[in-house]
């Protein structure tokens, strides 16, 4: 199937749940397994939380934007913010690296996103913002489930 959507919202923590659920509904027609849903949601959740917390410091007015495309059983997504930006992307992506240890951040966000997606890329400019792109291919829809 083919589908496309864009979702944007202001930077408040409540909207992480909104993003997670909206994206889950978006991929439902692919009839994913519970495990695939959970992996996909986790990627979205980590990227959106980063945009809200690190990008905008939960300012309640700047926009986080998600764009997603379904092409057959592959989902391509971008999560973007126009916030603080990342100083050193390579370092930021290292396991356990966090600039906010005092906030109980684990520093595992990018590591989790990488392990649950097929490919992931990050672009960022200090003071301009951050774009996270990823792809995830789902197991093909079976005939039995298609018929229901």
């Amino acid at each position, binding site marked *: 199937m083919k589908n496309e959507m864009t979702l944007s919202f202001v930077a408040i923590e*409540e909207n992480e749940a909104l993003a997670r659920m909206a994206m889950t509904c978006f991929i439902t027609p692919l009839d994913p397994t519970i495990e695939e849903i959970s992996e996909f949601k986790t990627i979205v959740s980590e990227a959106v939380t980063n945009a809200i917390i690190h990008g905008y410091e939960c300012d309640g007015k700047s926009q986080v934007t998600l764009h997603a495309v379904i092409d057959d059983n592959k989902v391509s997504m971008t999560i973007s913010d126009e916030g603080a930006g990342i100083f050193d992307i390579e370092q930021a992506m290292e396991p356990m690296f966090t600039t906010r240890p005092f906030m109980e951040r684990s520093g595992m966000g990018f590591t*989790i996103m990488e392990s649950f997606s097929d490919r992931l890329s990050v672009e960022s400019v200090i003071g301009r913002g951050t774009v996270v792109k990823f792809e995830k291919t789902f197991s093909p829809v079976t005939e039995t489930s298609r018929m229901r």
Partner: protein
Amino acid sequence: VGEIQRFLRDDGMVKVSRSIRELSFKIRHATDDYIKKHGKSPSISEVAAVLEVTVDEIILASDALRDPASLHEKLYE
């Protein structure tokens, strides 16, 4: 209990929390059973059919299953 309620509240699902929590346990069981039988993970529509609920309900309830501990197991397994 306070912990679970806070967790559900954070997920924004207060009024429907108990039934969702119950369903989320059923999903876990149904999924395990299915894997034992078929050697692969079931799709949401298959789980919905087994439990005789809608796919929407599975989505809501499976969101309540989100649990950082299992995430960790997955990462380090």
